[in-house]
């Protein structure tokens, strides 16, 4: 029996500091063993437990896409013990990864539809995975229009800046990057994510919105999508709870009878409505 608690060794092969405050970094990890790499199958929206031996594990959304073979990427905010240790690591260090875990963005359901991706802050990570997946040449024709609204508090807090520029240059994706407040050098859009969504006003016709961000952003964005005619089945989000085991055993991440670690983290609003509001 494969032991789901034993991490697979991975080597940190690249570290990118994403933001001016330096407390968000993206770690590129390569599997030490080929068979582990082959066994680690995933889809956008899933997460993994990153393991720093001697410190512990943290659940982190997978920021890379399965269309990017050879490595995994995770964008991590420095928060407590494990994430701070991770931030101090250097390229070449070996850490561990367990996964993949959880469900994923519902790719089958998204197929054939227009997709509106809405992200705020560094919760953009698994949305990035989804976007990279959808615009890959093998997949692009499976989805309709792709509209992305992504916002951060300041220009310096936007992550994946190079990639944003590359997407900007494409004509098969409508990208709207916004900041709450710009600075001298910022030539882009200013305004909160919900406001921008209202302006962009994507049609709800055959469309699904996938949304991830701080709770307050989500709270103000939802009414905009209801006004646009999106049903609760077609608004999809991801939950965060404190986790340990990641496989529905340790008993701490449940919302009602669902375990966020294995039945989630992705839920539609319609599904969330059926659960208790304890998250």
């Amino acid at each position, binding site marked *: *029996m*494969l*032991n*789901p*608690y*034993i*991490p697979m*060794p991975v*080597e940190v092969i690249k570290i990118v500091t994403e933001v001016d405050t330096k407390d968000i970094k993206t770690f590129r990890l390569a599997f*030490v063993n080929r068979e582990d790499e082959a066994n680690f199958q995933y889809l956008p929206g899933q997460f993994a437990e990153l393991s720093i*031996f*001697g*410190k*512990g*594990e943290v659940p982190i959304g997978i920021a890379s896409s399965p269309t990017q073979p050879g490595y995994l990427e995770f964008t991590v905010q420095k*928060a*407590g013990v494990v*994430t701070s240790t991770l931030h101090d690591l250097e390229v*070449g*260090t*070996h850490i*561990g990864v367990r996964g993949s875990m959880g469900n994923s963005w519902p790719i089958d359901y998204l197929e054939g539809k227009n997709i509106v991706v809405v992200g705020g802050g560094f919760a953009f990570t698994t949305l990035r995975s989804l976007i990279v997946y959808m615009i890959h040449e093998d997949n692009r024709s499976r989805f309709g229009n792709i509209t992305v609204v992504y916002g951060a508090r300041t220009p310096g807090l936007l992550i994946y800046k190079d990639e944003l520029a590359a997407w900007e240059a494409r004509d098969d994706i409508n990208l709207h990057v916004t900041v709450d407040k710009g600075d001298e050098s910022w030539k882009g859009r200013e305004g909160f994510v919900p406001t921008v969504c209202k302006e962009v006003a994507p049609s709800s016709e055959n469309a699904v919105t996938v949304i991830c961000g701080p709770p307050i952003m989500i709270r103000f964005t939802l009414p905009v999508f209801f006004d646009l005619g999106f049903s609760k089945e077609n608004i999809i989000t991801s939950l*965060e*709870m*404190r986790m*340990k*085991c990641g*496989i*529905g*055993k*340790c*008993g*701490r*991440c*449940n*919302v*009602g*009878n669902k375990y966020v670690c*294995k039945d989630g983290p992705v839920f539609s609003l319609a599904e969330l409505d059926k659960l*208790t509001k*304890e*998250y």
Partner: protein
Amino acid sequence: MEKRVLKKDKLAAIIKNVSRDMLVYAPVKEEDNVLFMALKEGREPLLNFSNSRNAPKTFFFPRTEIMMKYTRTGKGMELSKGEGEVRETALFGVRPCDARSFALLDKLFDQDKYKDPYYIARREKTTVISMACAHPPYSTCFCTSVDGSPTSGEGADILLTDMGDNYLVEFITPRGEKLLKYFGDLPKAGEAEETLKKEIAERAEKEIRSHIPAKDIKPILDNNFEHPFWETIHRKCLACGTCTYLCPTCHCFDISDEAKGNDGIRIRNWDSCMYPLFTLETSGHNPRPTQKERWRQRVMHKFKYYVDNFGAISCVGCGRCVMYCPVNLDIRKIVEDIAKL
């Protein structure tokens, strides 16, 4: 299923023989408590006992357990799994409520896709020998309210029933039948024993004094997550966790690392939903901020969520949480009150 009749005075010798070939845990008197302990040379198992204070789930899901060891080697890490080989084991004298708890824990730890290899490895190597409660021992016993019975063999491989001068020995599973050889050439049970067992079972059920509407509250829990009732039950709760640590069906755990120099271990320890930190996130947000939400979680988990997910109440009616709660919070009373909402 093999059913045999065993003269009572022969049992001790049989257990002794079993313990030559495998590890045997049995109820033993330890100061003021009856505890399940390894049966060492010269220690006699208690044959007449009410129930152990500790729940025997600990043999499949230990209080603390090494999940993995590691050693730093240059830039790499060498990992090895836990504590190594699991030995062939027999648990002797498990009460039917506690044996049922194994069947309930199986549903969680041994799901189709999500398996717990540590639990399963021990379960596969362990023979559970139950002792029916011919006379339910405590006024707090309520197994019949949660689909159990004082003479049930659910979760057991072998079930012994005290029939006066003899035990009726039922070899319930193939794993149990493997132990037939230790019992020697016993007479098969006949109609007389069957009738007697039935009488004992009926009498034992009648002797259960505590009855609660545990099976009626599921539809009420389905609809009353926000009911003001939840404000009323938890106030004297100390958040000590005793109820969950003693409970044979509670399974929550924490995972943490301990390291010294280049060597380290990852361990898991029992944890409890009654603790404030259990769901506290690094951001400071806590989805269960007060004891109200934690008590509600405990009730919901046992009487609703487990039923939703596995079709069974996650309480076997052993009464431990009732007996040992330092402030006398009584889950039976709470279930009764919910039934009246």
